[in-house]
């Protein structure tokens, strides 16, 4: 990529290398610039003693950082981290709404209860199906849409607005919408499938353990494709056109261009989006809560809806233990994921 090409499109805010490089360069020279301003007698905001410039600058800098970070840090510490930590200690206590007189420490008993539950295996398996069955179609369809939406076509803006709106709806409400459509008696899905001759009699989608998970996944794919499309579309706009021109000159086909230029170029965004989405999908009981409530026979319970169920039974101790298991599992996963994608990222940047 030549500097000339960067200069040709200074308005493009998405170019990842242009502004970044510029930003880095200026950052490197910031210190000297400030120094020069002080020495040269250019209007300094404050009189700076020679030789002691840097420490003072650092102190002011530290103060500024602290002041700017404080509101966010205080809010998150008080309303997110404090309750989580306070909730964590419940995991090591007997803490049941049915008997609040006894909140004694019970060590790891709650964790044992979580793992010893006969339904735990089912719940864990469901969680795996839920995450993989959601993320793969979301990623593939989202990618395809982004590739196509990248190029202009008539009514693209309108199409984009229409296709993006599922993201504005709450997971809980999506569960309700699809619960109504998959209704066994009055559901439109059965009606359409029967009209198309694909099924002979109505299917009890949400009552049948074999089909309930499928129905829930359809709803989640409907919801989640948008996020991938937006993120990938945004990242695609950062790929310089010259790369495509060069690859076309080399006679590379579409598939080769996709795998050798497009995907490697947006790898960082892709990896981080997938990581964020996996965490979100994992921590997303809302849709299932609204659609099946975990039924039938626990077949659509994932770990987070399972936690809701335990909470509703009043066993806060065990629910907190499960919560800690979830946070620990996700943390481990995130660390491994970031390590696994790190090497590639360094090569890229």
């Amino acid at each position: 990529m030549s500097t000339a090409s960067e200069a040709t499109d200074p308005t493009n805010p998405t170019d990842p290398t242009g502004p970044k490089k510029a930003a880095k360069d200026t950052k490197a020279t910031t210190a000297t610039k400030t120094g020069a301003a002080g020495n040269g007698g250019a209007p300094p905001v404050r009189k700076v003693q020679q030789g002691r410039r840097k420490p003072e600058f650092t102190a002011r800098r530290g103060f500024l950082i602290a002041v700017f970070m404080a509101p966010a840090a205080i809010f998150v510490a008080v309303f997110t981290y404090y309750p989580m930590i306070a909730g964590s200690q419940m995991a090591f206590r007997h803490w049941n709404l049915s008997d609040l007189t006894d909140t004694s420490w019970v060590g790891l008993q709650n964790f044992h209860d979580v793992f010893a539950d006969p339904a735990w295996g089912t719940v864990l398996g469901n969680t795996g199906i839920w995450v993989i069955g959601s993320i793969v179609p979301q990623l593939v369809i989202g990618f395809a849409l982004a590739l196509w939406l990248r190029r202009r076509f008539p009514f693209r803006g309108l199409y984009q607005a229409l296709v993006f709106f599922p993201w504005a709806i709450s997971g809980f409400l999506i569960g309700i919408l699809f619960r109504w459509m998959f209704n066994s008696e009055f559901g439109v899905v059965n009606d359409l499938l029967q009209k198309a001759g694909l099924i002979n009699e109505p299917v009890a989608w949400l009552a049948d353990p074999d089909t309930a998970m499928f129905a829930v996944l359809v709803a989640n794919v409907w919801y989640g494709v948008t996020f991938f499309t937006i993120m990938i579309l945004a990242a695609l706009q950062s790929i310089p056109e010259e790369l495509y021109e060069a690859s076309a000159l080399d006679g590379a086909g579409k598939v080769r261009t996709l795998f050798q230029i497009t995907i490697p170029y947006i790898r960082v965004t892709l990896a981080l989006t997938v990581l964020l989405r996996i965490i979100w999908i994992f921590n997303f009981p809302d849709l299932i809560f609204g659609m099946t409530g975990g039924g039938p026979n626990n077949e659509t319970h994932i770990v987070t809806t399972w936690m809701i169920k335990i909470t509703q039974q009043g066993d806060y101790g065990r629910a907190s233990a499960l919560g800690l298991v979830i946070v620990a599992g996700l943390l481990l996963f995130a660390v491994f994921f970031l390590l696994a994608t790190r090497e590639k990222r360094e090569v890229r940047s």
Partner: protein
Amino acid sequence: MIGKESTAGRAAKFTFLGLWLVFTVFPLYWITITSLKAPGDIFAFPIAYWPENFSLENYSGLFGKADFGVYLTNSLIIATVAGAVATVISMLSAYVLARFEFRTKSALLMAALVTQMIPTFIALGPLYLLMTDLKMVDNRLGLILVYIAVCIPFCTVMLRGFFENIPDALEEAAMIDGLSRFGALFRVLLPVMRPGIVAAFIFNFVNCWNELFLSVTLMNSDSNKTVPTALNGFISSFNIDWGSMSAAAVLTILPTMLLFAFASRHIVQGLTAGAVKG
């Protein structure tokens, strides 16, 4: 441009785009049609894809039997205030995280990521006790404070990406011209960042508008309920009142959908910046 498309390729592309559009829009169409049927017609065979008689009975029921207007107002106030305040606070933290190098920076970013992993339910009990101590249970201000905290981490990460795309030189020039750092931030950077800020606010607003579990826990009285809490009320009983539910669903979706439609350009632009930097 990218190489010319073949006719077959174009056909496949537009077929797929068309099918996806139908699949995306149909659930919304269906809930709207359901809400416009007379309550008795909802459970009539054969299923009508275009009702013979349109009826607003489900909607009038919402405002007559239930206080849906109150819920909508509550949600509107809470989501607007929480979304706006969270955006402002996140702007400050995002600015620092984008512009300065300091030792605790990666720890702070990790702390933001970890908030996304915490299941809401682990914090519900202690949060309820905390809000009781602060005398803010069943209080709109209380819910606003909690929502601000919920919005900040993702909003900060998103806005940070946006700040990083704006060259330092822009504000340095402003500061050399005599503006303070605050002045440079507000008079020079913010106008450039408008799409990102709009996108961040909309994300916050939609998140707060849709939030269910915290609001169910913290809001007890009918006059303080938000829309999702009210929707949840429609299914607590054994049966779902699909007439009221569908009408309520349409009224819940409409505001956020309009917001998305008007601002979809801003959202893509705003996320464009955020996405590139992750």
